[in-house]
């Protein structure tokens, strides 16, 4: 007779001393783990609920400005430094980790229209309503020394925006024309204009560094090459664009914030149709910024909300609002992809988490693993009605909700009307125009 009976030595299964961690022998045999899918689903549902419970996106508010914030600039090298300009010409440098103002400069008379920092992080530029471009040292002057700009250029017209080249000592301003300046000179190297009376935003491409895009008040977006004498291309849309932002990872995409409540992502290779239309705002979109990963974008709107969109999502994944936040004028995504800064009309800069339910601070390995697992679970079960309902629901203030419904109603009515017109006219005489095609008037070479 040969016999073997299961006999386990408890020493192999119980920890040796109380200071040890417990032994956890595993067996991944699926028959030992019944109800895999229902249990995972339950976990996903719990994770979704917890995500909502922990969704506290508001981190801090920086107050100190005495007028509405008109522009925010990130420091290219330091994560904790942010520079903001206000409508009374005041510029403040902030330390985000301490949440305090490091330095205050009365930079301009009237608005600070635009700001940009130099790529090396040693100085920053401001333009204002007083027709000047000023270059400031990033370092605060010593005690008792007056805060003077390094360099001041007096222009002929008002400047409305400025952006610095990513590699060289040139910068671009916009106003009545788009001007390319050398830091060493007091007159522009080059001026571009293409039948427009004013521009409101200019941005250098972060990868193809000589490429430049600007938004004009004639509802156009114009692309330039700084090495060429004439602009490259122009897209004319139905409504004016307020700002634009380049995708830093896939730099052939840019997104523009439009007055018609939408944002449009364009591919510069195919300008005739936007790649994506990002809808959800119920008022003009004032500012937009890509995340440093290029996967998401954040927009600020006149409807007092900030929305976060996926790179190619038509609708927002997140909306931030508070009772006290008024029209949001500028918004920036921090360089560590974790925070969003927004400057609004009521003189405050607000700091938000980019991912509302993310836990801040150092995470232990197990916490990280758990967070990743939960994220994956939510992703896996995202289309189940229960999970979807909880995950996508966002509370909106009543006024905003009303406006949203109104917008929807209007859109439906328009669609109905179009369908009716098409139904009662000669077949083929009225073409079907998609939402993407609807908003572009023309592309001019």
């Amino acid at each position, binding site marked *: 007779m040969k016999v073997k*009976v299961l006999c386990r030595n408890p020493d192999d299964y119980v920890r040796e001393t109380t200071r040890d961690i417990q032994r956890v022998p595993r067996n991944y045999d699926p028959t030992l783990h019944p109800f895999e899918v*229902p249990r995972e689903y339950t976990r996903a549902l719990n994770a979704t609920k917890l995500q909502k419970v922990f969704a506290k996106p508001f981190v801090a508010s920086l107050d100190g400005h005495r007028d509405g914030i008109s522009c925010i600039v990130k420091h290219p090298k330091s994560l904790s430094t942010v520079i903001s300009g206000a409508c009374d010409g005041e510029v403040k440098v902030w330390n985000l980790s301490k949440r305090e103002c490091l330095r205050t400069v009365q930079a301009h008379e009237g608005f600070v229209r635009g700001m940009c920092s130099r790529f090396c992080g040693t100085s920053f530029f401001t333009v204002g309503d007083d027709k000047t471009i000023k270059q400031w040292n990033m370092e605060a002057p010593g005690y008792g020394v007056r805060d003077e700009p390094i360099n001041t250029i007096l222009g002929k017209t008002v400047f409305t925006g400025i952006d610095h080249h990513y590699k060289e000592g040139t910068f671009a301003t916009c106003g009545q024309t788009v001007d390319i300046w050398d830091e060493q000179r007091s007159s522009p190297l080059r001026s571009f204009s293409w039948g427009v009376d004013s521009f409101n935003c200019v941005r250098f491409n972060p990868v193809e560094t000589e490429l430049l895009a600007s938004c004009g008040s004639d509802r156009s977006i114009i692309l330039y090459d700084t090495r060429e004498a004439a602009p490259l291309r122009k897209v004319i849309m139905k409504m004016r664009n307020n700002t634009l932002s380049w995708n830093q990872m896939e730099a052939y995409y840019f997104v523009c914030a439009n007055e018609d409540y939408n944002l449009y992502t364009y591919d510069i290779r195919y300008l005739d149709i936007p790649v994506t239309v990002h809808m959800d705002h119920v008022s003009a979109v004032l500012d937009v910024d890509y995340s440093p990963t290029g996967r998401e974008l954040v927009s600020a709107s006149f409807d007092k909300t900030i929305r976060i969109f996926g790179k190619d999502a038509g609708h927002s994944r997140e909306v931030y609002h508070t009772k006290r936040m008024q029209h949001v004028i500028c918004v920036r995504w921090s360089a560590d992809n974790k925070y969003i800064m927004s400057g609004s009309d009521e003189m405050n800069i607000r700091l938000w988490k980019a991912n509302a339910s993310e836990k801040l601070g150092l995470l232990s390995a197990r916490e990280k693993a758990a967070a990743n697992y939960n994220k994956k679970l939510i992703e896996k079960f995202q289309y189940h009605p229960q999970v979807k309902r909880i995950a996508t629901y966002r509370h909106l203030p009543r006024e905003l909700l009303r406006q949203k419904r109104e917008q929807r109603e209007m859109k439906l009515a328009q669609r109905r009307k179009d369908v009716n017109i098409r139904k009662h006219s000669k077949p083929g005489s009225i073409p079907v125009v998609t939402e993407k095609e609807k908003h572009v008037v023309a592309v001019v070479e």
Partner: protein
Amino acid sequence: MAAPMPEGLPSTHVEKKNKKQKKPSKRYWEKTENPDQRKPGEEQSKDAQKQNKARPINRPLKRKKFEGPEQEKLDPFPGVAPVPKERLQKFKRGEKYKWHPDTLRKLKTAIKFSETVSDLAQDQAARFDLLLPEDAGFLEGDEDEDTCTISQDDIADAVDITSGSKYFNLDLSQFGPYRLDYSKNGRHLLLGGKRGHVACIDWHSKDLMCEVNVMETVNDVKWLHTEAMFAVAQKRWLYIYDSKGVELHCIKKFNDVLKMQFLPYHFLLATASATGFLQYLDVSVGKEIAAICTKMGRLDVMAQNPYNAVIHLGHPNGTVSLWSPKQKEPLVKLLCHRGAVRSLAVDKTGTYMVTSGLDRKLKVYDIRTFKHLHSCFLPAGASCLSLSQRGLLSVATGDVVQVYRDVCGSNPLTKPYMAHRLRGQVCGVAYCPFEDVLGIGHGQGFTSMIVPGAGEPNFDALDANPYRSAKQRQEWEVKALLEKVQPDLIVLDPGELGKIDKATFEQRHKRKVESLGFDPLGKEPFKPRAKKKGRSSAGAVERRKKKVAYEDQRDVIRESVQEKMEKQKELEEKAKAMELEKKTALDRFRK
């Protein structure tokens, strides 16, 4: 391609140079990067490149780049170690996606990515399988020795002391016959004597946790999710006790309970009563989830399917019915026996069901297809059935317990694997999870019998750990409660939730109609315009209505009729052609 000449030259040059140079003695800080060792390597690589141009790249050539020409030994087992297919099959989940020609590109990449990830997981799990510490038990007889003749005493003598001590008898002749239940991790044993004796034992260490006499008939006992609580079905009501024997609850909603089953992942206690009610108690919140009137009379045969948590009930008319808490009707009804069903057991994978009836037959069913696989005739009939984790079937007939091997499958039952005679009538049998032990409750007490090869050798400590500490148990309890599966999710296929919900057009349309309150696709009924000069009389209106009636269908009908006509014509033409072909030479003489 270049000629071999220039290739040959530098090598000779290098060799010469080497001869001239004196070899410096090797210093400890120098690594093996000697010039004479390296140069031939480079040459080799050049050579290899040349060869690569000529023929497709293969591995050993590439490797030469890194190894010197002296160490040209190839790895006899290149790449990762292969995993046997059967083992991979064990961890397979679902079928691979069948590619549709017009699958979207984005979807394609997403599916491909997820498939690679799941393949990796499957492979890793299969590799991990090799590292499992324990092997299953077995019992083999010598030549012409029948394993069923080997007595328990012999086995207990032959094995080590710890295992030998797993064969024991408890002489409890006063309050028998006994029902029993093992806790989910197999550590604790609960005994309930018909005449009121209830005891729970940590049977590894043989220490008695509590012993009470409830002074009432005990019909069944069951552990709840941990060893801290158990349920006892007494003469009238259902009681819940803690591990010290203190009565926690008396649940009067559950009366005349005869059999109980606990669904550990749903935290449901399912009870079958003498009045024909199947009731579900959620033990985490203490609420009755469902009470189903089965209308099938006294319910004293019950089993759960551990794979999908469906409750199987056996009835006096020979049927077995399958129940889920959210449905008032049975999911399935099976006619299994000519007489009443006496006992039921379902295997761990939810594939096979074994039933025994008053017709003294033992039948095995495949419950995926509800087909009868095989049956056998037992002279005394089986009163209790139990299936172990590794698929051993124990059959209690009178005072004998027989264990059969390879029941689950298509080959019929042969002789038993083991057998054991007891002193009293058997009332309950249960295998201990993760142990080679069969617990038998009978009229004279309790017997723990060694059945080698019954239990799963390797447990998963996150699911059921026999050696867990109090802290671990608490942790597990919280986790388990958090992922309590809702009773609505008890269906025949538990994986249904992970499948694509292919709502038909009709279903979606119906849902839309329900949510909108009207049918968006429905046409408004035709309303004839009011006309003057007496043309709006009822008859005229009816006539006008008739004109437009079925207008939308007319085109369809017209088309289908035309199609039919064309087909008819074609057929006729074909028939004509066939007829022509059939012509023989003699046809010309025909008039």
